[in-house]
């Protein structure tokens, strides 16, 4: 299978581990990725004009005829929303008027659904089944929105994937609550409060690891975890893995390939436990 790959801006900075692990897992699953030519920023959540946001996405989508995969929920949501808006002839016309390569149509995937499609339950490539590992499936907001792909209220794809890796999804009440990430710079307190609520809830649910599908969620829950612990005066100490990292571990890929050393909360203890279970 061959897909166009849209890494998104964070792949160059705070989301490097997302990019690294996505490429590694796809390689392992024999999914060929062709990076989009000269891609631009999708605007994240900071372009308030719908048409401009649509135009930015359309430029990216117009670069290829292949289905497009991204590993970032924000990019994913933006591309999907734009593709929907571009179904209106009027929008299409206005946007194409400013584009060099014209947009006609696009199919958008998140790495999550690509992996789920490629990796069956009893796939023999799962060489390190994550036996008994308690995983909190954290969707965040934009993977499921706009609606039409997964249920925006009770999505279950992550649970499905977690089970396929032989791990145990915990019942995670706040799994679709927004992490606060989009406003963490100018509205630090508001964002911190939400992120900490999510961490606490994951802990209460008995999670040994939290899995995310969005680099911003990852930033809020992982990179900020120690800062939040200090600020709130409460320990969490739960590693937060990007979904491709979790899959990579099960596929037996090494920490380097998955960028595990880039995580703030070290997943090493958790991994040791997994390996132990497997050697039993």
């Amino acid at each position, binding site marked *: 299978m061959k897909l166009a790959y849209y890494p998104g801006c964070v792949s160059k900075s705070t989301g490097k581990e997302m990019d690294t692990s996505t490429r590694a897992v796809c390689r392992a699953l024999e999914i060929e990725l062709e990076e989009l030519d000269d891609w631009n920023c999708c605007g994240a959540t900071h372009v308030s004009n719908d048409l401009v946001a649509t135009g930015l996405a359309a430029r990216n989508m117009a670069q290829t005829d292949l289905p497009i995969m991204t590993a970032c929920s924000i990019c994913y949501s933006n591309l999907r929303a734009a593709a929907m808006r571009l179904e209106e002839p009027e929008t299409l016309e206005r946007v194409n008027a400013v584009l060099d390569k014209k947009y006609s149509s696009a199919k958008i995937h998140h790495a999550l659904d690509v992996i789920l499609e490629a990796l069956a339950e009893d796939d023999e490539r799962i060489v390190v089944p994550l036996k008994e590992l308690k995983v909190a499936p954290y969707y965040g907001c934009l993977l499921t929105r706009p609606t039409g792909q997964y*249920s925006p209220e*009770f999505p279950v794809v992550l649970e499905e994937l977690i089970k396929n890796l032989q791990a145990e999804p915990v019942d995670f*009440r706040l799994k679709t609550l927004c992490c606060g990430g989009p406003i963490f710079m100018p509205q630090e307190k508001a964002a911190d409060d939400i992120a900490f609520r999510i961490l606490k809830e994951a802990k209460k649910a008995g999670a040994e690891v939290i899995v995310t599908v969005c680099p911003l969620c990852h930033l809020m829950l992982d990179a900020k975890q120690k800062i939040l612990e200090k600020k709130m005066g409460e320990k969490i100490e739960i590693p937060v893995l990007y979904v491709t990292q979790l899959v990579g571990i099960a596929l037996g890929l090494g920490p380097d390939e998955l960028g595990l050393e880039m995580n703030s909360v070290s997943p090493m203890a958790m991994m040791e436990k997994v390996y132990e279970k497997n050697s039993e």
Partner: protein
Amino acid sequence: MPTGVYVCHCGLNIAGVLNMEDLKSFAEKLPDVAVARDLQFSCSDIGQEQIQKDIEEFKIDRVVVAACSPRLHEPTFRRTISKAGLNPYMLEMANIREQCSWVHMDQPAMATEKAKDLIAMAVAKAALLQPLEPESIPVSKDVLVVGGGVAGIAAALDMADAGLHVFLVERRPTIGGYMALLTDVFPTNDCSICVLGPKMSEVYNHPNITLFTYAEVLGVEGSVGNFTVSGVRRARYVDEKLCKGCINECAGVCPVEVPSEYDFGIGKRKAIYIPYPQAVPLVACIDPKACIGCARCVEACPVQAVKLDQEPQDFKLNVGAIIVATGWQPFDATRKEEYGFGRYRNVITTLQMERMLNASGPTKGEVVRPSTSEIAKSIGFLQCVGSRDATVGNLYCSRVCCMASLKNAQLVKEKYPDTDITIYYIDIRACGEGYEEFYVRAQKLGINFVRARVSRIEEVEGEIFLIFEDTQTGELKRVKHDLAVLSVGLEPDSKADVLGNLLGLSRRPDRFFEIAHPKMRPVEAHIDGVFIAGCASGPKEIPISIAQGSGAAAKAIKLLHKGVLELEPTSAYVDPEKCIKCKLCVDVCLQKAISVKSPAYVDEAACKGCGSCAAACPVDAINMRFFSDEQILAQVRAATEVKREFPLIVAFLCNWCSYGAADLAGTSRIQYPTNARNIRVMCSARVDPSFILEALRRGADGVLIAGCRIDECHYRDGNYQALQRVNVLKGVLEKIGIDPGRVKIVWCAASEGEIYAKDLRDFIGELKAMGPIGTELKGKTGTNNQRGQMP
């Protein structure tokens, strides 16, 4: 074909403006006119007698009355000539009052000129009139009622009492519909089954009702008066005649237990079951999906009624009318995932609440939390679940659920006065006799009301919390309740789809069956002989469902009680020689009156005479018995014979709205210029593009087509079809160099005389700006285009 022409003075109503002498002598000279007279009041006895005398004396065989609107006196004069031995359809009227003398009061000369054209047009049409015999066909006096809910029951009983024979077909093993499952019913809180039960038994015992339960309609053919209906009675594996309804014998030994659909999942039933103790017929039924075939019931039955080898039975009926009373189904609450129904045990629906409150229901009248079976101490009702909600595609209000929650809250409060009850609502809709009082009663009982649409229900350690904004205080809240009750809305019964397709019923955007007119014909379908009652045409409460059942019954009785059906002889007919079997007519006919058998064939009993098919037929294979192509073309030619003024407009007005509007302009004495020559057609869809081209070719400067307002067409979407045809024609005109603005289509309701006049004035202004027809061609071709040379 000697014609008699009668120009009416109508006192001074006409004669005060028009020159009667001039008109009379004009009429005398028209072709085939044997006698022309002016009469003081043609509708008076004296006037009518004069016409009758002339028929005798001059042997005239057709009559033109130039007087008031045919909408007023056409029936009168038809009777007049019929008494003198003429066929009643040998009459044509020229409307020189409402559409001439009353609207051109200050232009007597021009008005007289216009009246001449109107008379000439009528005489030209009259020359082509054919005697028509209203056909009457024998009809079946039997009626099919589909759906045995309260609406269907009401309809069946009324018709049976009036002497018609009723076949009542019910899909479930019992009649009664949803009403039979409810607890006490608003607005008086009397026990539902206590009032419905006797009616159900009456249906069962009525000599004029044949009841088929557990049955379905699978085929419908024919048309009004003579429908052939086929269907099947599914096997219930129990002999209806033998079963005594004791049920404990058989169900007692049955080892299979499944959730009961009649308790909406909170109670259980066996594989052999009776839906509820008051079911009619009181006969057991085996659920083939649940039954494991152990045959214990066969042995247990004291009268050997269980027949595991029972086969389904087909039935075939001939009925004159069909009443659709297929009701509703509850909105599937699992679709509102944020409320967690089906996921959180203490979230239930109002229907489950109804069953719990029901003394013979699964909890014997106790209101409990399903998770613990303890009595619920605190209850929240969430309104508008699945209604007024674009996210699930239901924009409509389900109309009964506010009242249902008010009722359930009251019943709970009366039974357990300490219960804390809150109703979360967007608007409380309590419109009906005694309904607002019912709301006040609930308030006085201490039930809390919070104006909020709950955004989500959350479950934490087995407790449920409602999350919402109290929009009256602006507070965000998270409130715990023992039980959350989702006030689910009403959707059309999806099992009625097959029937709807068989009958060709149309659906509104809300997916309920559409009625023929949203105000004036509340229980009629678009298809003749088919009626709709109860929730099949939209959510409604019991009293209205019953009223509609009775209403539909009255319509069916009116239709069939004579045993014969008089058909208006104004229908369409197909010339089989010309028909090329393109089926365009089939698509435009809303009545489904045209069958696809080759060549096309019009069922004249079903045809309403709109004429759209005649306009649609590309080879003119369809014509109308009244308002025929030839007659209309004759009117067009007469109107353009002498061009008496500029701009000259030929106008086609639909009988129902725009002709009415033009008449109203007259009765309101709205004054406008004389330029239009009006031709009455049944529907704007009757206007064949060839009529328009003929008018323009013969020198009319413009053609106006006026129909009912969009969505108000009396044939549903004839005006829309007209619009499409006109748009296509405009494209053609443009190609051949004629200003497409010369053809104008407008909409007005019968109440909009002023709008009709304004549209006409505007059009006259536009045509003046364009100049006489052909002006636009001069520039191009350099020739002086005269009448008769147009493409």
